[in-house]
C-alpha cells in the first residue's frame, strides 16, 4: 500500500499541453500520498525520456509508475517495458489517458480538460496503489500447428510454418486441396493460372518432411488451450484403393447412375457420385461422394479398385496453436434478384469464370452464342438493405479481368459494366484502363436506384439510370447477364462454432484489432488467415497467411509460453459453490473442487480469458478479476467522483 510513486505528465508536443495545463496537473497531484516524484515531459515516449525514467525508478527506488499521455493502446506496452528495464515488475505500471479522452476530446474547454486530466491521473494513482507485482503465467507449448483449410492461404501458411521448424498438420474438409483458387483458371494480375499456383504449393507440401496433409478431414472435437490443444480429426474414406488404374476408374464413372450438380463448376455441369480431381486439384485421385452414392454396386462390377469396406478414421493431434484458413462462399443471389433463377441467361460471376474457362472458340450459354454481356456489380455486397454492408474487394478487378479475357478469347464480344463505382485499387487500376481502352462501356448508378433486368419481347434487357450521363436511362439487350457476386462467410460454420471463434458484424471471423493485431483472435493461440476473416484477393490472403503463420509460430517456437496474468480469482473462504459462475463462463474455465471439506469454485488459469463474466453473477461476491478488483475500481470511482 505504501508505494513510492513516480508520475510523468506528457505534453505530447502540444497535443496535450495546448489544451491541458500540464503544470497545473502536476501541482494538483504531486502532494498526493505516496507520490515521490512528478514531472512533466515534452514527449514521454522519446528515447531520452525513457532512459530518464529508468534512472528515476532506480535512483528513487520507485515501486509504482504512471505516465499520463496518449491512449494505452499506443504506449502502455512501451512504458511497461521501461519499468521492466528499471528492474520493476511491469504490472506496477498504470497508464493514464489524458490525450484522446481529455485534451483532444475537450479541446473546446481548456479548464474542463485540465480538471478532467487531474481526475484521471488521481484515479490512476488510486489504481497503482493496489497494483500487484504479477508474474506471467508460464506454460509448456507443443511445437506443432494445425492449419484448417488447404486453400491458397492455408497451404502457404503450412509451408511457412514447416520451413520455420514447426510440425504442421494441414486439415482440408474437401477431398482435394486448392480451395477457391483451384476454381479460377486465369487470375490477375499475373499470368499464372490458379491451377499453377495450387500445383506449386502442393508440390512443396507433399515433399515437406514437417507437413502431414489430411484431406476429407474435419475437426470433431477439441480441448485444451494455447500451447496445449488436443484435437480429434475425422477422416472420411474415399472408397477407392490407394493403388488404382485410370482406365478402371473411367469405366466406373461411366457406369455410375448417380448424377449430381458439380460444385466445382458452380452447378453449370454435372458429375457422377464417383469422380476424379480436376486438373487444378490435388492429390490426383478418384473419390466416391458418400452423401450421393446409393451403393448400387455398378462401379464395383467394372472396377476392382473400389473398396466399400473402408471405414472412417479418427486421428488425435496435439498442437500448440491453430491457424484457421477456411475461406469463403461466393454470394448466392436470391431467386429473382436481378432475374437470377428466373431469367435463364442470368448467371453469377463464379459461373461466368468457369464458363469462360471451359469454352473454346465461341462463348455459348444455353445453346446461344453470346455477344452482349451485361455485368451487374455489387450483387450481395455493399447492400443498403441486406446484411452484407461490406465491399468484397476482389470482384471489380476480377470482373474486369474476366471481361477482358472473354473479349480476347471470343471475337465479337461487347462488355457493358453496370457499376456502383469501380474499385480497382492499386496496381489493378491498369486493368480498368486496359478495359476502357478496349472499348468496354461503363455505366453507374446509386445504391437506391439499381439496374433492372427484365424480359421484353423475349429479350433480356438491362436498364439503368446512368449517373455518369445525368441519370439518363440507358438500355442494353444482353445475351448474358453476369451478376458480380461478392464473398460471404462460409455457410457451413461448424468449425467456427467448435472453436467458439467470434464473428464480426460482417459474420466473418473477427480479429482482435483490425490494424494492430490483425491475425489474432480472442481465443488465445488461434489465428486467422485469408478470406475466412473477410474478403481478400489472393495476394492479400497470402499476406495474411504469412502473418498468421508467424504469429502462430511465436506461440510454439520456444516450447514455453508466457500468458497475461489477468485472470479471475475465487475467494475460497466465502465461496459456497452454486455453479452459477461456471455456467456464465464461456471458456469452461471454472471447476468445482473440494476445499477444507466444502465444494468451492476454482479457476483454470490456462482457460480463463479474463473477461470477468463470472464476477457479477456470484451471489456471495467471491470472485475478483486481477487488476479490476473491488478495491481498485471503487477507489478509482471515489476519486473520479470528487469535485
Amino acid at each position, binding site marked *: 500500500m505504501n508505494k513510492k510513486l513516480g508520475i510523468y505528465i506528457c505534453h505530447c508536443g502540444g497535443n496535450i499541453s495546448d489544451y491541458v495545463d500540464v503544470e497545473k496537473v502536476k501541482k494538483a497531484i504531486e502532494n498526493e500520498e505516496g507520490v515521490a516524484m512528478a514531472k512533466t515531459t515534452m514527449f514521454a515516449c522519446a528515447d531520452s525520456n525513457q532512459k530518464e525514467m529508468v534512472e528515476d525508478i532506480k535512483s528513487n527506488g520507485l515501486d509504482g509508475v504512471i505516465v499520463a499521455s496518449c*491512449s494505452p*493502446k499506443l504506449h502502455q506496452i512501451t512504458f511497461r517495458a521501461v519499468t521492466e528495464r528499471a528492474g520493476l515488475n511491469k504490472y506496477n505500471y498504470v497508464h493514464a*489517458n489524458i*490525450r*484522446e*479522452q*481529455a*485534451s*483532444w*476530446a*475537450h*479541446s*473546446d*474547454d481548456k479548464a*474542463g*480538460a485540465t*480538471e*478532467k486530466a487531474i*481526475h*484521471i491521473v488521481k*484515479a490512476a494513482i488510486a489504481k497503482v496503489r493496489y497494483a500487484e507485482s504479477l508474474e506471467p503465467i508460464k506454460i509448456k507449448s507443443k511445437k506443432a500447428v494445425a492449419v484448417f483449410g488447404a486453400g491458397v492461404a492455408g497451404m502457404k501458411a503450412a509451408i511457412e510454418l514447416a520451413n520455420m521448424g514447426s510440425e504442421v498438420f494441414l486439415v482440408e474438409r474437401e477431398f482435394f486441396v486448392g480451395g477457391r483458387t483451384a476454381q479460377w483458371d486465369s487470375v490477375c494480375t499475373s499470368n499464372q493460372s490458379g491451377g499453377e499456383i495450387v500445383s506449386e504449393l502442393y508440390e512443396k507440401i507433399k515433399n515437406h518432411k514437417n507437413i502431414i496433409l489430411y484431406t476429407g478431414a474435419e475437426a470433431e472435437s477439441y480441448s485444451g488451450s494455447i500451447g496445449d490443444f488436443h484435437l480429434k480429426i475425422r477422416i472420411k474414406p474415399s472408397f477407392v484403393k490407394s493403388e488404382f488404374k485410370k482406365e478402371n476408374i473411367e469405366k466406373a464413372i461411366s457406369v455410375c447412375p448417380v448424377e449430381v450438380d458439380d460444385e466445382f463448376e458452380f452447378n453449370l455441369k454435372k458429375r457422377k457420385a464417383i469422380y476424379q480431381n480436376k486438373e487444378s486439384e490435388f492429390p490426383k485421385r478418384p473419390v466416391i461422394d458418400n452423401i450421393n452414392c446409393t451403393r448400387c454396386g455398378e462401379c464395383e462390377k467394372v472396377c476392382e479398385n473400389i473398396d466399400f469396406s473402408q471405414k472412417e478414421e479418427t486421428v488425435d493431434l496435439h498442437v500448440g496453436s491453430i491457424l484457421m484458413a477456411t475461406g469463403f462462399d461466393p454470394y448466392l443471389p436470391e431467386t429473382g434478384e436481378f432475374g437470377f433463377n428466373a431469367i435463364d441467361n442470368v448467371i453469377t460471376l463464379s459461373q461466368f469464370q468457369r464458363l469462360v474457362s471451359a469454352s473454346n472458340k465461341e462463348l455459348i450459354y444455353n445453346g446461344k452464342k453470346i455477344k452482349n454481356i451485361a455485368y451487374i456489380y455489387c450483387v450481395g455486397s455493399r447492400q443498403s438493405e441486406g446484411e452484407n454492408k461490406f465491399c468484397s474487394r476482389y470482384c471489380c478487378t476480377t470482373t474486369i479481368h474476366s471481361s477482358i479475357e472473354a473479349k480476347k478469347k471470343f471475337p465479337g464480344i461487347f462488355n457493358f459494366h453496370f457499376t456502383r463505382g469501380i474499385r480497382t485499387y492499386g496496381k489493378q487500376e491498369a486493368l480498368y484502363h486496359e478495359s476502357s481502352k478496349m472499348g468496354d462501356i461503363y455505366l453507374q448508378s446509386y445504391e437506391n436506384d439499381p439496374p433492372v433486368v427484365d424480359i421484353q419481347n423475349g429479350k433480356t434487357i438491362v436498364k439503368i439510370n446512368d449517373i455518369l450521363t445525368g441519370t439518363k436511362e440507358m438500355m442494353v439487350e444482353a445475351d448474358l447477364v453476369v451478376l458480380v457476386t461478392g464473398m460471404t462467410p462460409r455457410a457451413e460454420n461448424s468449425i467456427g462454432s467448435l472453436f*467458439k471463434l*467470434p464473428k*464480426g*458484424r460482417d459474420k466473418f471471423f*473477427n480479429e*482482435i*484489432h483490425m490494424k494492430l493485431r490483425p491475425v489474432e*483472435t*480472442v481465443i488465445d493461440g488461434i489465428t486467422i488467415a485469408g478470406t475466412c476473416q473477410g474478403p481478400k484477393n489472393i495476394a492479400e490472403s497470402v499476406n495474411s497467411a504469412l502473418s498468421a503463420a508467424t504469429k502462430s509460430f511465436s506461440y510454439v517456437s520456444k516450447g514455453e509460453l508466457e500468458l497475461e496474468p*489477468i485472470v479471475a480469482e475465487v475467494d475460497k473462504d466465502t465461496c459456497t459453490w452454486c455453479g452459477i459462475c461456471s455456467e*456464465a463462463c*464461456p471458456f469452461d474455465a471454472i471447476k468445482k473442487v473440494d476445499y477444507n471439506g466444502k465444494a468451492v469454485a476454482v479457476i483454470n488459469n490456462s482457460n480463463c*480469458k*479474463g*473477461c*470477468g*463474466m*463470472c*464476477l*457479477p*453473477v456470484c451471489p456471495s*461476491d467471491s470472485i475478483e*478479476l486481477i487488476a*479490476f478488483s*473491488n478495491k481498485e*475500481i*471503487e477507489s*478509482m*470511482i*471515489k476519486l*473520479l*467522483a*470528487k*469535485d
Partner: protein
Amino acid sequence: MPVSNKKYAKILVFSTEKISDPAIDMAGLLKLHYPPTVYTIPVPCSSGIKPRWILNAFEEGFSGVFIAADGSDCPYGESCTEKTGHIVAKTHELMKEKNIESARLRMAAICSVCSESFVKQMKSFNEYLINNVNN
C-alpha cells in the same frame, strides 16, 4: 426548468478495453466534443461489471452511470449482450430499493467505431441528468 445550475452532470462510463474504449478514444481523435465531466473506467468486457460498482458510483456522487457495452461485437462471445442486459436489470432493482431513479443508469452498445453515437449518447444523457437530477 433544470433542477441543477450546473452545465454538466458527472457521468461515469464503464467502457470496454477492446471495443467501446477505442470508440471513445476515436471521439477524441476526431475532436467530437462531449461534457468534460464524463469519466471512463475501462474493463475487459461489459458483462463483467458488478452492480455494486454502479451503486458505489451513485453513492460517491455521480449523477449518471453509462455502460458502453460490447454488444454483438464482444470478443468474448455472443452471450455478452444478454449478460450485460441482466446486469442492468439487476442493478435497476437494487437502485429501486435505494430510491435511485432507474433512468440514471443507461446502457448502449458502442462498437469500436461508434464514436459519434457515443458522443450523442453523452450529450443526451447529460441533458437528461441536468434537467431531472439534482446534481
